[in-house]
């Protein structure tokens, strides 16, 4: 390396006035069959990346990203669920030793210990050996953590009926729902259904009535006999009013499509 007086610079910058040829390194001084990062190895990485990208795009095409109905803070029937990678934490809180009086244990101590140990792993596992069998404690803890996270996630996910969740929470743009208050069936709706199913049929204590696939007769039957957790005799009126009510719900559904 030239130092001091031997060097000539362009102006007062650090750019040397004399260009030195870039001599490629001699790879023979490294053990094994090494190769240059650019372009040899990077090409292989990008091939792997291309295959990965194709798989990834197939996934996005095959499974459109889900979107549920617009957030409705009053939807009391909704059972929250976090994204899948937080499910294990969510499931952990169901256990007695992790909730109730022990909530701090479940919420802070256990995850805190696990993530803290992960963060500080190199300082906790500071022996010289790198092979897994040379550090049984660290590997054992990691396997234990891994198994419990996988198991917790699995248990949590297995309890959820994903299909009916997706079905019950289909997005309905509010703008498409037009409520014709002049409709003869609206008065009956207002009296009998609105309290639970919302002023715009958007749901509340009961499910939304937009996007249902029922005939007028079926709607009438449900209004009188109830269904699921909906009690019977919600509708109390004449048969003609019942018919108008069913017709009203059908009309709103047709307009929303």
């Amino acid at each position: 390396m030239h130092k001091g007086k031997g060097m000539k610079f362009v102006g007062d910058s650090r750019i040397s006035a004399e260009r030195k040829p870039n001599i490629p390194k001699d790879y023979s001084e490294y053990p094994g069959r090494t190769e240059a990062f650019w372009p040899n190895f990077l090409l292989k990485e990008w091939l792997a990346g291309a295959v990965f990208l194709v798989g990834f795009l197939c996934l996005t095409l095959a499974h459109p990203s889900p979107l549920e109905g617009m957030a409705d803070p009053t939807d009391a029937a909704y059972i929250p669920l976090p994204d899948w990678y937080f499910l294990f934490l969510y499931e952990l809180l169901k256990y007695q030793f992790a909730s109730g009086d022990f909530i701090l244990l479940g919420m802070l101590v256990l995850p805190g210990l696990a993530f803290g140990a992960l963060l500080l792993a190199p300082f906790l596992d500071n022996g010289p050996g790198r092979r897994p069998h040379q550090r049984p404690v660290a590997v054992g803890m990691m396997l234990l953590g891994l198994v419990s996270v996988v198991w917790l996630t699995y248990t949590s996910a297995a309890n959820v009926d994903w299909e009916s969740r997706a079905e019950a929470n289909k997005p309905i743009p509010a703008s498409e729902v037009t409520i014709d208050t002049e409709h003869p069936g609206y008065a009956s709706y207002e009296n009998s259904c609105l309290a639970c199913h919302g002023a715009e049929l958007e749901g509340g204590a009961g499910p939304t009535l937009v996007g249902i696939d029922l005939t007028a007769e079926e709607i009438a039957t449900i209004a009188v006999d109830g269904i699921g957790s909906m009690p019977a005799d919600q509708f109390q009126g004449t048969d003609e009013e019942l018919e108008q009510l069913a017709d009203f719900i059908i009309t709103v559904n047709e307009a929303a499509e």
Partner: protein
Amino acid sequence: MLQKIYDWIDDRIDITPIWRDIADHEVPEHVNPAHHFSAFVYCFGGLTFFVVVIQILSGMFLTMYYVPDIENAWKSVYYLQTEVAHGQIVRGMHHWGASVVIVMLLLHTLRVFFQGAYKKPRELNWVVGVLIFFVMLGLGFTGYLLPWDNKAYFATQVGLEMAEQVPLIGTQLKILLAGDATIVGAQTLTRFFAIHVFFLPAALFGLLAAHFILIRRQGISGPL
């Protein structure tokens, strides 16, 4: 022509050493899947970065349509998904990428862990890596709320409730995140948007830069 442009620039700012340092380092045999197929485990880190790039790009384009406002957030997402050509795909990339990046990150972490690659002198890079993991989980949590659908709303409410259970600072922490003591609403959405789009990505870029610089300085760990 291109060569001339390059020479012109190089004469003035001497860029050759910069890219030579990146391009000319030799890749040892034990990480090269062409020589040992099992070396594909070394791809996980690079693929994680690739998904991060997908996330950044798709996220940037999503903000062309998205508005962080409780009246319009859901509508804008619904619109870009149903009315905008390829909007479904771009949101799909961001949505699935969020999951895939966690999976790849996990695989990469496990590779490094079980190979003991974090041992001296690479402790610092492991710590930086775990911090990246935390930032990613934060991005996942804040990004989940943004579509403002039922799933997002209620999951966030539960998440904030968890934050509130933290001793001493719980309530303050919750308000700091949600912008209001009791309401998960307009102020929560703008806050989560800011955190998701500006604060955490800024932290992520810094950590990623540190991660990569450390790898270049220390080289990849040797074979077991």
